């Protein structure tokens, strides 16, 4: 059994976008804060911190889920995909990112990282979704700029429809 005292800093190793990285976390440190402040990966955004807005969504252990409702110490040894892993190393955007760009599916960009990660996993599970299915998936994200129509359009384009 693993027990970590409240003020004890535990070494946590995770594989982020294919690369093993480590940092230290006390039990109450959120995974979002661990990614940003320990690992210096600022792509994952922190919004509401109670699971409602969707900005912090990442693919954790194969599931698109909230990184603000996970503690870093829970994630030792897990694989995490974040928005930094989508584009090529030279900055070339992937199909989904290009579709967001071409359809005006982002404005301020705050919600975008989470939506991209949800959409990535969603399209793996459902490669040819209809608009209703896309909107159902998007209901787990709040965007205050675009009004969602362009986002739906971008996801459809990325799915080759």
């Amino acid at each position, binding site marked *: *059994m*693993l*027990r*970590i*005292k*409240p*003020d004890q800093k*535990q070494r946590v190793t995770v594989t982020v976008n294919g690369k093993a990285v480590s940092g230290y976390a*006390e*039990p*109450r440190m*959120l995974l979002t*804060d661990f990614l940003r402040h320990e690992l210096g990966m600022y792509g994952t955004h922190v919004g509401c*911190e*109670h*699971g*409602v807005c*969707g900005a912090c*969504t990442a693919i954790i252990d194969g*599931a*698109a*889920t*909230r990184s*603000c*409702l*996970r*503690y870093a*110490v*829970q994630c030792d040894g897990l694989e995490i995909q974040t928005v930094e892993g989508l584009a090529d190393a030279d900055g070339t955007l992937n199909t989904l990112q290009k579709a967001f760009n071409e359809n005006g599916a982002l404005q301020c960009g705050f919600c975008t990282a989470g939506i991209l990660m*949800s959409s990535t996993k*969603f399209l793996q599970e459902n490669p040819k979704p209809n608009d209703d299915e896309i909107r*159902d*998936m998007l*209901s*787990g*994200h709040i965007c205050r700029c675009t009004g969602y129509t362009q986002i739906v359009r971008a996801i459809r384009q990325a799915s080759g429809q």
Partner: protein
Amino acid sequence: MKPVAFEYCRPDTVEEALDLLKEFGSDASIISGGLSLGAMLNMRLVRPKALIDINGLGELADIKAGDATIRTGTLIRQAGAMEMPVLMSGVPLLAKALPYVGHYQIRSRGTLGGSVAHADPSAEIPLTLVTLSGAVTLRSPGGSREVPAREFFQGLLTTDRRADELVTGLTWPIRRDLTGYAFEELAQRHGDFAITAVAAEATVAGDGSIADVSFGLGGVEDRPFVATTAGFVGKPATAATASDIANTIAETVDPMVDLQANADYRRQLVRVLGARVLTAAFNDATGQQEAA
């Protein structure tokens, strides 16, 4: 928006988890998916001395199908449940309710047992379990006990679980013959907490009359409950009777009042959604008769 400092405990066995509950009692919070508890921890509405993470207890992620019931381990994820044909065909009301549970990003991690243990009055999984007259299995150092769902939920986020007990599984009655099921809710945004959720199980006799009906309400009072509908048994299973039942029950409920809705609005939702769901359950049952 950061939780209080707590000790993190990740037991490898149920026995270890129970030892921790004995040690910390009500100072411990048990986390499975953490989709509800995580929010409360971050807002410091819950301030535990210890967080007991049960995600390592693989034995609690099993499913056992019997003749009359299906037993789901507490750790089965909501999205995982939706991919289990035995569960979805065996418990059609659960299949109809699960798409309303949170969002895609919530169901991927949230668990069946966690939602029941958390006991939000508007949550879909507790309402489904209550409507079907299922049960909750709890384990403590002293042994196991099974509590009928209709007795388990005692109020807002309050259940019959003692501080030294762990919810280990749920028991779902398997669908009955000539019985229809329906579920519907209203929320501000699809996937948000329901302002009101309604569920129905109805058995229709060969002559088209109601043989049995269970009409469950969530988000109306401080816990999910089944309305008293015995007086309608024997009446025709029609849309008119469905409205009668919903209108009658709407007068008897004592709705919660919050920022989302006042009591009159919730009462109206009981009428409208209730009539719709009961009609759908009657039609579902009658359709099976015609197919048979």
